[in-house]
């Protein structure tokens, strides 16, 4: 009963902006908000995965994100310099996107493995040390990023096909937004399936609860944790590439800006809950767009207000346990 009432209240809030916004604009904003939300979810999911499963709050996440963005930028830049990007068809562009995301994901995973092996493994179970050390790692990684790519903003070459849009019920929808939404939903589904249904999910959840039992059953828990960390880092990097395309630009400080969004999402959704991050990301994405249209100056502030309100009602976040 209660969950039904909650859902109704949520839907009501979702439709509330219709009082001030005409329906077509509302739908346009909704699509934009959903795609932004899904991009944020990509970043937040990695954070949630690492936090929820391994009990590590990884503040170096922003750096993985920025590295991913720059990797994606590099791949697209190369393709562009060979003249492939400009006139590519939608399907061709999708292929380029897959290559860019794949490269970013691989680099992210690699960085994740290195970070976990060198640093994180020494601080399992100690939150304060984790926070401190990951802040340091983040700082180092952004400096390395500046050494490789320089300190200036760069423009990301975007396939024209992504900027095209189709019209549905009078609403202009850009193709890239659809791609972003689909990718977000896909990642959500894969994560849910992996955690809830597969053996690896069971092992990982068990490992968080009691390393000893998992080890004595015969699993190499260290390797599994490294894999989870790498996966989280890869998601951050993929999110970075997507955001680089979305904004058509990269800069070395971009990680910090989006880390706020990811943190707000994780706090709203409840720490460690993938579903919570998904819902939280949608809330943040939508409210950001609605408010940016109505009261542009309030756009970021409203997310803080939502966070404060949700914390007042549910201190553990929407889907937080305990």
């Amino acid at each position: 009963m209660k969950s039904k009432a909650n859902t109704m209240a949520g839907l009501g809030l979702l439709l509330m902006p219709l009082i001030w916004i005409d329906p077509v604009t509302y739908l346009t904003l909704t699509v934009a908000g959903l795609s932004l939300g899904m991009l944020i979810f990509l970043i937040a999911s990695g954070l949630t995965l690492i936090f929820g499963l391994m009990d590590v709050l990884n503040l170096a996440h922003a750096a993985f994100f920025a590295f991913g963005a720059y990797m994606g930028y590099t791949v697209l830049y190369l393709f562009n310099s060979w003249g492939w990007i400009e006139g590519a068809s939608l399907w061709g562009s999708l292929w380029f996107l897959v290559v860019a995301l794949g490269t970013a994901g691989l680099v992210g995973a690699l960085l994740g493995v290195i970070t976990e092996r060198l640093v994180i493994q020494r601080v399992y179970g100690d939150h304060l040390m984790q926070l401190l050390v990951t802040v340091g790692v983040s700082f180092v990684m952004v400096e390395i990023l500046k050494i490789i790519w320089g300190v200036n903003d760069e423009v990301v070459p975007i396939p024209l096909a992504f900027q095209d849009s189709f019209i549905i019920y009078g609403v202009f929808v850009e193709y890239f937004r659809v791609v972003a939404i689909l990718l977000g939903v896909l990642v959500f589904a894969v994560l849910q399936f992996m955690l809830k249904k597969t053996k690896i999910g069971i092992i990982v959840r068990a490992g968080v609860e009691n390393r000893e039992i998992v080890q004595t059953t015969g699993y190499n828990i260290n390797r599994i944790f490294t894999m989870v960390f790498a996966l989280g880092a890869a998601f951050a990097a993929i999110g970075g590439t997507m955001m680089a395309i979305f904004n058509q630009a990269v800069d070395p400080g971009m990680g910090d800006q989006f880390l706020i969004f990811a943190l707000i999402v994780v706090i709203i959704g409840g720490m460690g809950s993938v579903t919570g991050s998904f819902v939280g990301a949608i809330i943040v994405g939508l409210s950001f767009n609605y408010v940016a249209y109505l009261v542009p100056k309030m756009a970021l502030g409203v997310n803080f207000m939502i966070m404060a309100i949700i914390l007042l009602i549910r201190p553990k976040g929407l889907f937080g346990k305990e």
Partner: protein
Amino acid sequence: MNDSMLTLDDVHTHIGQHHILQGVSLSVNPGGATILLGRNGAGKSTTLKTIMGLYPASKGSIRFKGEKIHREKTHKIARMGMGFVPEDHAVLFNLTVEENFRLSMVEETETTRQNLEDVLELFPALRKFWKTKAGLLSGGQKQMLAIARVFVCDHSLLLIDEPSKGLAPIVVDQLGEALLRIKDKTKVILVEQNFNLACQVGTDCFILDDGQVVFHGMIDELAKDKPMMKAYLGI
């Protein structure tokens, strides 16, 4: 010596600054159940954990089926056929009973599935709570699950740490039956404070005191040796 299944030779273990095991030497032959007895803090649990590789042995050697294992990682030791049931209802509370069993099947084969059927025959209550989170089971059911988990795989040696701790007498009886049935199939090393249960299940026994082995013999001999019992077990 060579036909023994597990041999500890002068094993020392430090936990932090504490010198817990101070030269434990024991050897265990295949078949039956070997009981580790001793007062609280004598080093029984530490012995099991050192064998399992959870604590590094600071000195001495451990051989399992002829191979040195005291430098191996825990999961490798486990894969060599050693099963471990830690004390205090060691199940995963946030996983369902089903998931607990799936976790324990390192490889899901015909044999393990058959074993699972057999185990559930032995502990019918677990089938009833198949989809329940293990944290919601009663103390006795948790302990049953903790032991049943390990039976699913074909181990050659099981280390079981104080299974009867904190259980109601009737549950202890049930447990005793289960242990009797396992020891026919698999070699068991059992740490047990409940002397009646130990006598019922065990064949031979070691008594540990202050991190050293002070007695080795058949358990029925020990039961007659009243001074020994009083000195080391306080019974």
